């Protein structure tokens, strides 16, 4: 899919794309962290029809809804090729004993044999994170290993 990026000086960026269903969508990402989603089409091709507005938190929540399962799915596709190996997303809840501490402190790999290959944090993906990477509440860890290893990792992270 082609996403067209236009600079809005002083305001932010506008992304524009056409969905397969033929809808032309614009997303205005403001410097302030707010997002505005508009639809094009109708009698004036240049005017965006305001669809909805998101503040920073709402945008982050929506990005996770869109992003995390898809990234987890891709890892699932990857591990399907290797028998015995699987992957799963593990969410760091605010109650987790490791929210706020470095990844290395969990010792997941030593204790379970499973590896944490990526951290999905809002719209960002931290690929192969080092032991110093500090975990935050609402991070989603992509764990790859045997199914027992993944269960063990879930128990450790959830506390």
């Amino acid at each position, binding site marked *: 899919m082609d996403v067209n990026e*236009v600079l809005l000086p002083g*305001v932010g960026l506008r992304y524009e794309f056409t969905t397969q269903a033929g809808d032309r969508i614009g997303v*205005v990402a403001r410097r302030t962290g707010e997002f505005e989603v508009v639809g094009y089409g109708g009698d004036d091709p240049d005017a965006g029809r305001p669809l909805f507005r998101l503040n920073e938190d709402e945008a982050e929540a929506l990005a996770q809804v869109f992003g995390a399962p898809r990234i987890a799915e891709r890892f699932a596709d990857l591990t399907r090729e290797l028998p015995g190996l699987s992957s799963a997303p593990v969410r760091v809840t605010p109650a987790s004993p490791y929210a706020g501490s470095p990844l290395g402190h969990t010792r997941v790999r030593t204790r379970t044999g499973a590896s944490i290959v990526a951290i999905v944090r809002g719209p960002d993906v931290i690929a192969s994170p080092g032991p110093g990477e500090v975990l935050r509440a609402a991070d989603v860890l992509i764990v790859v290993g045997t199914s027992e290893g993944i269960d063990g990792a879930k128990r450790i992270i959830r506390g």
Partner: protein
Amino acid sequence: MHVSLALLLELGLVLIALSVLGTLARRATLSPIPLYLLAGLAFGAAGVPHVPTAGQFLQAGASIGIVLLLLALGLEFSTAEFATSMRHHLPSAGVDLLNAVPGAVAGWWLGLDGVGVLALAGATYISSSGIIARLLGDLRRLGNRETPSVLSVLVLEDFAMAAYLPVLAVLASGGTWWQATVGALVAVGAVLAAFTVSSRWGHHIGRLVEHPDNEQLMLRMLGLTMVVAALAEYVHASAAVGAFLVGLTLTGQLAERARAVIEPLRDLFAAVFFLVIGLSVAPAGMLPVLPAALALAVVTGLTKIFTGRYAASRDGVGPRGRLRAGAALIARGEFSIVIVGLAGARHPVLAPLVSAYVLLLAVAGPLITRFAGARPRWWFLGRFEKV
């Protein structure tokens, strides 16, 4: 500590009056700037300048206001955005210069000297990026295809101000022609130097004021800005220009945080600045210049529409979008008033004329923008019912 009852009371009442006006303006998606000016005029007519306690504070507040306005403009500026705008819209910026012509002609016709002509030309040239950016957000037109053209023209105007304001400030502070030339060259050199510094060593300068704590960041920002502003004033390059330079040198994330930190302060002191400019104009002095202001407003409104249409056509926008772009650019505001703040002292006709001009266009611009090139009427009504 002695608490001045009169000062607190007078200031409190002034701020309450401003807040009521600001709320009214926002409710009508208008800029509060013209109302602040009007409030100044009304207070002046009602004899409020005779309240000496608040008067002194307001004067001091007004100089801080102009400094913070320019600091914010400098912080807003990004070299990358400037370069992109330059690539796409250099010819639009050329067409935009057309807007200075009516001002210059009017200045010449009113018998102003060279500095007065230059000031008036600048006042009719510069659209209000503050009013317009906010207006496009309020009208939810940021996603429209003509919006990048409008914003690019504004960025290029702000850049033109970077060269224009120092020159005007030096010329307005008087002196012989060669002093003015040297001063102007020094000022432009300082702006160029600030650009170089910010693009090469911006992070070093940033370290001077960088601090994770917002309170510290604000204190350091304000401290640095005011010291540089004072130095600039000392060499007759105007405090406003010094503040602008500080804003230019700070870039990236730091600039973003700094903007957020100083925004409430800027809003407060800028309001005081507009009020004081209003106070400095005698309502009786405004009547005789009203026809000239009206004529200027009509002519430069049309030239801005032409500019916007041209800029939008370069981005391949259709006729209705082109009209919207043109209408959006009409509003004049804070920088036209800043120009009066710099050059108004020596030209008694300038403050009333430009105040009346800004009053007209800061109100008419947003109104015209709202109705120009909007969707057909039935849709428009439907939208209001929903909101």
